[in-house]
């Protein structure tokens, strides 16, 4: 088993920002150091589709200039960050890991990118992913799979596999991903890092190339809770460019007053305990014990509708995707194939430009929305969604949080599930329900399996309890390995 987890001295985002702000190290030194590390390891890991070294250096230069001019630097001063390649950065090629967008450089920044630049972060590159965020392994990338830093023969999870691997291998201390059905939490679990899917509407989606609009949410990867909170503080908040963005104060959400484990009511979802590997079951049991020792009250709860979630998700997400991805027609941007007329051109462009998994989901979604099938598929899937929300809110009347494994298994081998879409879809069985409900959930690394692969636990909470998740995750992190 070949790994790329080495003895590189990890420096957190908070520590880098503090040092750069005090002038102990320049943003340029930090940038060059990380660009060099990316250069030496990316050929093995393939975590980045594009390394934006020019942008990174010019940002670092500006930050250092600001410091020299005596200006106060932002909270992410000089911190290198990886951006999933479905979030647009002005002037940097954004491909969504698809051939159809090859060569497209967006003329605008996503809201989160504007906020990161405002905070003096340094964008070092666009990370690899499953094409248009459709997948659980980062194998469905037009630019080749990302490798798991713990074992190069294994997948890093997906779809934000590049971001998870980049953080795990210390190419960057923090990264952004997007989570539609588990695309942050599942790769975070496979790569042994923290990954948060925030409450729907907590982080602006403006500039996130849409997969399934009603489920997509941008979120952070990091190795420390402090870094998670720092990054969330920067990227969250109301955005007038996103109609689904929530409008409220972010500070109280991220810094809840009550963070005691004593008296915390923890629900264990019965339905998620089936079919776990023994290593993962042991990790979950350990975590429960640590919580109990610290005074938490554990209760087994049931959310029967979670067994319909996977089906509902695979109707709603592809339905929205089939519409969201219609615009990739070769008319305005990206790749264009020749055709005798406009229709032939569009067909040729889409046939050549999209990969198999994307085509599979476009077909699924188109079918689900078709006349005569809408009620049976899309509409009943939305009814399941309503039911899930109702059952979650009922459960949350008796417990504060829910705890489960993030995934049923640890990282699988590259190619292992590629020929069996259904098997691949099952990777997200525990993460999908929170997307349907719009709730926050976090992956916390907690132990490893017999092969040394990371195991991740998932904490879920009601909407706008994102800060609470971070504090409980902090507790579990402190207990890991004790």
């Amino acid at each position, binding site marked *: 088993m070949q790994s790329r987890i080495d003895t590189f001295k990890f420096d957190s985002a908070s520590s880098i920002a503090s040092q750069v702000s005090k002038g102990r190290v320049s943003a340029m030194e930090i940038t060059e150091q990380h660009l060099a590390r990316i250069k030496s390891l990316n050929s093995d890991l393939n975590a980045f589709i594009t390394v934006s070294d020019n942008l990174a250096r010019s940002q670092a230069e500006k930050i250092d200039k600001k410091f020299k001019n005596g200006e106060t630097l932002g909270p992410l001063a000089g911190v290198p960050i990886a951006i999933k390649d*479905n979030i647009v950065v002005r002037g940097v090629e954004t491909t969504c890991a698809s051939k159809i967008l090859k060569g497209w450089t967006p003329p605008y920044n996503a809201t989160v990118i504007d906020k990161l630049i405002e905070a003096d972060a340094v964008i070092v590159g666009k990370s690899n992913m499953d094409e248009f965020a459709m997948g659980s392994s980062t194998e469905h990338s037009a630019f080749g799979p990302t490798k798991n830093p713990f074992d190069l023969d294994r997948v890093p999870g997906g779809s934000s596999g590049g971001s998870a691997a980049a953080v795990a291998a210390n190419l960057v201390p923090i990264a952004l991903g997007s989570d539609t059905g588990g695309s942050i939490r599942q790769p975070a679990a496979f790569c042994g890092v923290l990954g948060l899917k925030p409450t729907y509407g907590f982080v602006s989606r403006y500039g996130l190339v849409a997969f399934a609009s009603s489920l997509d949410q941008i979120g952070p990867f990091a190795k420390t809770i402090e870094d998670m909170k720092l990054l969330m503080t920067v990227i969250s908040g109301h955005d007038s460019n996103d109609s689904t963005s929530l409008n409220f104060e972010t500070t109280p959400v991220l810094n809840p007053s009550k963070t005691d484990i004593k008296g915390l009511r923890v629900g264990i979802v019965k339905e998620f305990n089936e079919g776990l590997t023994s290593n993962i079951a042991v990790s979950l049991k350990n975590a429960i014990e640590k919580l109990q020792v610290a005074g938490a009250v554990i209760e087994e709860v049931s959310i029967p509708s979670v067994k319909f979630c996977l089906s509902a998700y695979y109707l709603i997400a592809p339905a929205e995707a089939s519409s969201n991805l219609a615009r990739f027609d070769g008319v305005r941007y990206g790749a264009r194939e020749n055709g005798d007329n406009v229709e032939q051109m569009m067909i040729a462009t889409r046939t050549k430009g999209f990969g198999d998994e994307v085509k599979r989901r476009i077909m699924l979604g188109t079918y689900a*929305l078709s006349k005569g099938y*809408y009620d049976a598929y899309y509409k009943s899937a939305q009814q399941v969604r309503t039911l899930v929300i109702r059952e979650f809110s009922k459960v949350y009347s008796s417990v504060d949080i829910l705890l489960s494994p993030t995934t049923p298994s640890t990282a699988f081998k590259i190619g292992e599930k590629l020929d069996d879409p259904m098997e691949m879809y099952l990777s997200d069985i525990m993460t999908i329900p929170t997307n349907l409900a719009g709730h926050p959930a976090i992956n916390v690394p907690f132990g490893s399996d017999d092969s040394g692969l990371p195991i991740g636990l998932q904490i879920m909470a009601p909407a706008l309890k994102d800060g609470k998740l971070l504090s409980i995750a902090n507790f579990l992190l402190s207990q890991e390995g004790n």
Partner: protein
Amino acid sequence: MEEEVYEPVIGLEVHCELKTITKLWCGCKNEFGVEPNTNICPVCLGLPGSLPVLNEQAVKFAAMIGLALNCEVKPSIFHRKNYFYPDMPKDFQISQYDQPINVNGFLKLDKNVTIGVVRAHMEEDTGKTTHIGSSGRIHESSGASIDYNRAGVPLVEIVSAPEIKSAEEAKKYVSELRAILVATNTTDGKMEEGSMRVDANVSVRKIGSIEFGTRTEIKNLNSLRSLVRAIDYEISRQINVIKNGEKVKQETRHWNEDASTTVPLRSKEEADDYRYFPEPDLVEVDLGNDIVRQLKQSLPVMPLERRQRIIELLKNPNEDSAFIVVDLDLDGLLLEVVKQGADAELALKRFSNEFAGYVEEVKALQPERLVELLNLEQTGQLSATQAKAVFAEMLTTKSSPSQISTGLGFGGLEDSELSELLKGIISNCPNEWNRFKDGDGKVQQFFIGQVMKATKGQANGKVVLSLLEAMKNS
């Protein structure tokens, strides 16, 4: 006459562009006729990652239109209508589907005829494709260029009930609708610029039948004239199809103005699955009762009522003239001059003809001046021709009508001078005089014409007529 056993059933879908400052989902300017692709941004170009944010002014305008058409204004949502078209940047159109903002309204054409308005919903406009090539026809063109300035311009689509019974009535509906829309100041209503676009759904059925026949939808109706001609053509085409024992096909047809025919565009059955689903990037739209109430109170008096106010003043109602005056927004001034003592009939005649060409100038005049002018004509102190000349001067000088009249040497002809003149004309035309005496009313115009010719239009026709009558009876 076999045609008489069939009757047409017509429903109209009218799209109008709203006169908002910015587009429906972004801050780009909503302007007509500017350099192509200058009012565009990531949102209206549908660039990956962009999101729509609803324009509040557009929602208020849409509600005002609904209220003006007596609709219920309701909380509404947007759907995506999915189909591929190069000038539609997202390859779906954001439109309202089963929960539109305005429902169940009606439009009164006159005292007796009311047409139902099923709904008036919001949606976005597309870009505009221009085919490059000599003839402008798609199949001969070498390529196409697309202007996305129009993409994302707010539209309201007003759908009538299938209750219109003839091409003429369709014209009346569109004219009335246009007048209402213009009055609300939410849209320009310019058919020729495409800010108002009409599609007609036409079917025929046997008189007495309750069921509808198969309908066709006619597009490319760029003027009221095309609307009438296309509907009339389509009605007789469908009747012929049925009489030949065939069935009318449900399809979209294109009105070809030059050939004066409708031709099939595409068959409806093939392309009718738009896979509508609720737009996940937008939230429910609810103006709330208070704002809806305010908007209702802010609505101006509707054209029908404004015309009614004029017609009530008249002995011989003239609907067409009243329509013109209201359409030009001159009715307020008209009512004012009548209130100040001008004759209503004469005022309407001048407002709808001579004054109509100078709307802005007339509005700038003091009503007293117009009253004075109309009274000079009414009392015979100025002939119609003289009054026109004085009116023309009034537009450019600040002098009063009587001052202008004096300046132009319009002293007014004395009755005695006219009598002498008439006597001379009568003696030269004994035959006409005899016919006039025998009561042939047509000949009076002849004498008036002769007098006008002799006086170069300076005489007052009414005075001439009264002199003629007096001579006949003496």
